């Protein structure tokens, strides 16, 4: 599926905020502020200090009691994409399917957010920030260009990137797309940082199909981010690997959810549009 076909596939998909967003420019997300919008919600008895213009005079005439009309306001939700560009994302070596999957998910989600009028920003780990959230019409293309120009390499500090993304767009929606194969301290700090983020955090875990089912032939596997880590994947080691990797994924999912984030794992053999629909529907 090409990028254009992917964008066509997700057209019309909505990605509502998980909770009311702070007051901001008018948008599609329910705002914490209740104002005078056309969409009526409820009446409240008039209290001293209320704007007299919000009194429902017809109701006053019928009931001889003063009520104020309340309505939900809708606001925009800046969406900041933080995408891991470390060496481990360049896997498998020949197809780099893991990175392409992450890139396409970011593109599709950015397209959905942009269609709702939300500002979209991009931060790349471990590279520098690409651009802050913006609403211009060309932002999706800019995001596509920025992701296409990425040169994968280095080791990611997810904690730094998450905090940077959250700092740039306060009370925004931060979407962290990564394989989370960083070192344990960084991951723990990232989770702690996720708890401190004022807005929403979406942790999208990208796993290569080849990581779930490594080649059956005897190989000596090497961590691309740590060449000193080389171990033989032979015989009974394969079962141990499957067990340990599954346990780690379960731990990651539990910890992200415990941190108040939305966690979704997707594999490279899953169509990107299906993964995106799961992400936007996740609690």
């Amino acid at each position, binding site marked *: 599926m090409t990028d254009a076909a992917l964008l066509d596939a997700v057209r019309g998909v909505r990605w509502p905020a998980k909770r009311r967003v702070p007051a901001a420019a008018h948008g599609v997300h329910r705002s914490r502020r209740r104002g005078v919008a056309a969409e009526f919600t409820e009446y409240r008895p008039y209290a001293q200090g209320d704007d007299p213009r919000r009194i429902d005079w017809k109701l006053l005439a019928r009931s001889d009691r003063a009520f104020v009309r309340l309505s939900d306001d809708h606001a925009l939700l800046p969406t900041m994409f933080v995408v891991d560009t470390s060496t481990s994302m360049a896997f498998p070596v020949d197809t780099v399917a893991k990175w392409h999957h992450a890139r396409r998910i970011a593109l599709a989600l950015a397209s959905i957010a942009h269609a709702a009028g939300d500002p979209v920003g991009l931060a790349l780990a471990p590279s520098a920030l690409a651009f802050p959230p913006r609403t211009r019409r060309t932002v999706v293309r800019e995001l596509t260009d920025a992701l296409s120009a990425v040169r994968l390499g280095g080791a990611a500090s997810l904690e730094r990137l998450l905090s940077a993304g959250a700092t740039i767009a306060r009370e925004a929606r931060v979407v962290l797309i990564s394989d989370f*194969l960083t070192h344990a301290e960084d991951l723990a700090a990232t989770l702690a940082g996720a708890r401190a983020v004022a807005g929403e955090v979406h942790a999208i875990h990208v796993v290569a199909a080849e990581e779930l089912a490594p080649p059956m032939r005897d*190989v*000596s596997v090497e961590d691309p981010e740590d060449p000193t*880590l080389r171990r033989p*994947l032979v015989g009974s080691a394969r079962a141990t*690997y499957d067990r340990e990797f599954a346990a780690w994924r379960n731990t990651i999912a539990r910890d992200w959810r415990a941190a108040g984030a939305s966690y979704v794992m997707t594999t490279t053999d899953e169509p990107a549009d299906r993964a995106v629909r799961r992400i936007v529907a996740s609690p």
Partner: protein
Amino acid sequence: MNLAAPGFLAAAFAVAAAVVALHLLVLRPPPASRLPTARFVPPAPSMVRRRETWPQDRWLLALRVATILLAGLAFSRPSLGGRRAPSARIVALDLSAPAARDSARRYLGPSDVAIAFDTAARIVPNDSLGKLGRASGASALSAALIAARRAAAQIRADSIELIVISPFAASAFDAATAAIRAQWPAAIHVVRVTQPVATLPHARVQWTPPDGAIDTIGGVIMDGIVAVAPFTRSRTYRAPEGSVVARWVDGAPAAVERPVGDSCEREIAIGMPNTRAVDQLRAAFTDRPCGAAMLSMAMGDSAVRAFAGTGVISATFARNQGGSGDRTLMTTLLILAGALAIAEWVIRR
């Protein structure tokens, strides 16, 4: 090239094959592959045993195989002499039987060995059988077997057939014959010829059957040979004057011979059982000429068959060639093997 002990070379080939098989099993790290989740693989030695389709370290393998084969060849005691004949014959002919010479000519080939024996044995040229003298009458198979065993060690042939041509008189066997026969590692082709006819005057035989008190006694000794059968004798028998030709096992005379003119009279006081087992003894008493010193009683067929043995008729011998040239070759091969072993050690380091 001849090998005195080819088993060593065969063993060397087996060991070399095992070495080649070991070279197909190599301990080396498997091919490397990048895997971001490598941290979940349990730590373990990164060397695994793999079976290759083509031997690894071919120079080392060649040196090792060459070392083993050279050592095996050296220990197999090689010699660079001419090629041995595939087979040869040793023909032992009994000089006490003139017919044995005619039979021997039929069996002897140009590369065969002839042994003439009576009480002693010697190797004789194949073309001089007609010049051999007649024996005194006695012969010894033990002497013939010993001479054959010695001759076999000198014959350059892969297998040797032993042919013994003799009347197989009982007197040709002695106490050592069976043990010496066992030294020949194959069956023996036996050719039985007729016994020589005596030229001495024939004896008048008088059988004196036992009468009166009959005694049953099991054995008769005649010319040192003990014949065992249910013989009977008269307890009251008194032997006449004359030469005792047979005695009972207790020493009492059983047959006496006394001269009568140009001939002689032989009185035999033995009650012969009516069995075929004593037919030869009876014939010996009857046919023996006067004054014959030896009993020419022939051996039974079963004894001759036991002497011939069963199984393959061709014997093979591991020879000690022992010449200086062979020792030189062995030493050279061992030095070469040692040099290759050192080279292998150097390359392996």
